[in-house]
């Protein structure tokens, strides 16, 4: 059943992703929705699959596009179609789910609303003691720090901006803002790689356990793999954020579960982390403890401790995890390796580490060109393995380039070219010197050949040659007969 409340957009869909980013989706968020919520308002574009966990009879969905309302209604959901400010401000819901955030709740027909105004509108429909599941994009998140300038989409008739004083900037301010609005945050998560379809949710509690940093780094590294060109590699930035305790501060988005009733205890049902379709609960059984192998390797590289690097590389490449990228292996206290990703070709994994080492600025540790295949061959050599660069499997065509890396590449190539020129000049000088020496030796040879002992020697050598020829012909004849 669909009710038009006003402000609805007839030629519009948020769910099909054609006018801007797609709806909120993904298994990770599903883990937050598998509990009794009572009467629920789902506000904003959420993928229909995500809502399947909720009992349809108790769910009302607010959609601003007519096409979306139609689609959702066919799934047996109650739909209100229009702009949020048109909804009756009656506290009718036990739960409000707004995982897409507050930026797509008003239609193009509505006057722009500030973030706070929109939040207040949502809170107006929430019962006392009710629960809010809120997604918030971090405008200083890794996705924004690494992004190249983009053209606004149709959905961005206004764009969220951190100049807006009405919008809490930063995670701490978000929490205190919610507290001021009478909300008690039960759980909050850093969401990677973005608000739309996070694959990794990390609670504050799980981040507090320093021994899990390796597993969390590996999770975040997988999540933020770039698919388009970027300013700098988000993987490096995100893993560094985890190491520096900034996984929440720089997360692309946050997900908050908050209650209106101060007496409500924490939701035990909610996981401490969701990583690639699995939930984890503290004391985090199931997540390996320790730093990633890549972290150990690069730490050794940074100290120029090549003997330790050789040991680590050898341990890795002679283990069953040889085909797992070093960034997806956790090295435990007892030197045990735990793979967090499936194994592929060991050389591909080694090459991936070579790429990380080059991108991390560690190529100058070896006297080779900063080339992945060349470095892979040296790394193999460090494990005692004989390998030619030509035997290294070619890299996949890169889906994305980082502008910072391109600039570094340009500088490196410029330097390599000037070095090659210097070497070329040296070789030329050397060649001239050797030619002169050859000329001198030949002249001396000619002079010596003209002397009596020289002539005698020439005659002797000639005689010996003739003898050799004669012997050969005799041998041939003897064989032939």
């Amino acid at each position, binding site marked *: 059943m669909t009710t038009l409340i006003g402000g609805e957009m007839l030629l519009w869909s948020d769910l099909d992703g054609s006018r801007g980013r797609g709806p909120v989706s993904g298994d990770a968020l599903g883990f937050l929705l598998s509990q009794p919520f009572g009467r629920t308002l789902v506000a904003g574009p959420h993928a229909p699959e995500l809502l399947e966990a909720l009992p349809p009879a108790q769910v009302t969905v607010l959609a601003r596009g007519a096409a979306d309302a139609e689609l959702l209604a066919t799934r047996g959901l109650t739909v209100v179609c229009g702009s949020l400010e048109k909804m009756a401000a009656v506290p009718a819901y036990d739960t409000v789910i707004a995982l897409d955030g507050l930026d797509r709740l008003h239609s193009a027909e509505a006057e722009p609303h500030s973030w706070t105004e929109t939040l207040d509108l949502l809170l107006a429909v929430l019962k006392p003691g009710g629960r809010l599941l809120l997604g918030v994009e971090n405008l200083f998140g890794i996705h924004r720090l690494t992004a190249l300038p983009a053209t606004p989409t149709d959905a961005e008739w206004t764009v969220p901006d951190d100049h807006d004083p009405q919008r809490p900037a930063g995670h701490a301010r978000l929490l205190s803002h919610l507290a001021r609005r009478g909300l008690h945050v039960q759980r909050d998560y850093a969401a990677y790689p973005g608000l739309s379809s996070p694959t990794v949710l990390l609670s504050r509690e799980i981040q507090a356990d320093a021994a899990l940093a390796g597993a969390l780094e590996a999770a975040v590294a997988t999540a933020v793999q770039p698919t388009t060109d970027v300013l700098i590699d988000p993987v490096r930035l995100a893993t560094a954020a985890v190491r520096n305790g900034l996984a929440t501060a720089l997360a692309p988005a946050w997900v908050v579960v908050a209650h209106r009733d101060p007496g409500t205890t924490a939701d035990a049902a909610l996981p401490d982390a969701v990583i690639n379709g699995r939930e984890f609960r503290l004391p985090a059984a199931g997540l390996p403890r320790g730093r990633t192998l890549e972290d150990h390797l690069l730490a050794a590289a940074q100290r*120029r401790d*090549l003997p330790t690097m*050789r040991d680590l590389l050898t341990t890795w490449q002679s283990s069953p995890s040889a085909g797992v990228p070093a960034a997806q292996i956790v090295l435990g206290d007892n030197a045990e390796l735990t793979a967090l990703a499936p194994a592929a070709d060991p050389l591909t994994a080694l090459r991936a580490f070579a790429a990380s080492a080059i991108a991390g600025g560690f190529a100058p540790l070896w*006297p*080779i060109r900063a080339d992945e295949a060349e470095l892979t061959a040296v790394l193999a050599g460090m494990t005692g393995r004989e390998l030619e660069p030509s035997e290294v499997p070619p890299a996949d065509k890169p889906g994305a380039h980082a502008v910072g890396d391109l600039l570094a590449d340009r500088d490196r190539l410029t*330097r390599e070219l000037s*070095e090659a020129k210097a*070497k070329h000049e040296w070789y030329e000088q050397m060649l001239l*010197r050797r030619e002169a020496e050859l000329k001198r030796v030949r002249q001396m040879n000619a002079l010596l050949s003209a002397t009596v002992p020289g002539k005698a020697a020439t005659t002797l050598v000639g005689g010996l040659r003739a003898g050799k020829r004669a012997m050969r012909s005799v041998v041939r004849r003897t064989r032939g007969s």
Partner: protein
Amino acid sequence: MECLVHHANHYYGHSHVLARYCGLDDTDPPRLHGYLQHGWNIGDGMAPDHEYVPGVPKFVWSERVRRRAWSLGRREVYVVGSPWAYLLAMEPEPADAPPRRGTLFYPFHGWEGQHIIGNHEGLIEEIRATEEGPVTVCLYWQEYRDKRVRATYERAGFRVICHGYRGGWWKDLDPGFLYRQLAEQRRHSRVASNRLCSAIMYGTLAGCEPAVYGDPMQLEREKSAFGGQARIVREWSDLHGAALDVSVARRIATAELGADRLLPPAELRRVLGWPSLRHDPDFELTGVLTR
């Protein structure tokens, strides 16, 4: 000064030893694409008269030298360890080696460009006063050829030897130098000199008890680059004296000779720009020198 494939790389048969370690023909070591440190060094690892072609790697023995070279503005500096350390790795001391006796003494030597100024008689007295067992004196080839210097030591009752030519400019190269040096050092229980030098480091790593004492003598026109002899005495004070803590000395020698940082052959071949075993057309003929 000719660079790039520096003739100094072949001093004392250094590249020959590395070639053997790499499984290549050590009678004719391949071109080494870079400069190789050829002696224990308190500076940037290279000879003071070195000129550099940009981008050409400099291979040094120890991490300490690499750090120092970097601080002095050198780049493309890589630690590979000393040829001596590789030689020892390939030639472990046999279990049934004859017992070591006496002291092998290396009087501080000049080189082809600078001769030594000092009193050999005075040094002989100090050696006699210090050493209890028989003494062998090893002279640099230049001094060994000087009959007067040789006779001075012989008159003192010392056995006088020379490990061979250093070689240079690809001429008079002496691939057997280090092998002879190792054999001699392993005959002696002590290695000593009047200046801390490569030979003391070598001997310490080869199992001798080191000692540095006596008039350190002077080189003609000796320049005190990198702090000179005074800094050596100050910075490596643990290695100066007639009786030293052997375990401390061994730790220092291990670090200075990079014996703790040797590369596997496969890695060393790649790093030196040498052919792999599979790509060396002469691989069938490859064999190590037999001595």
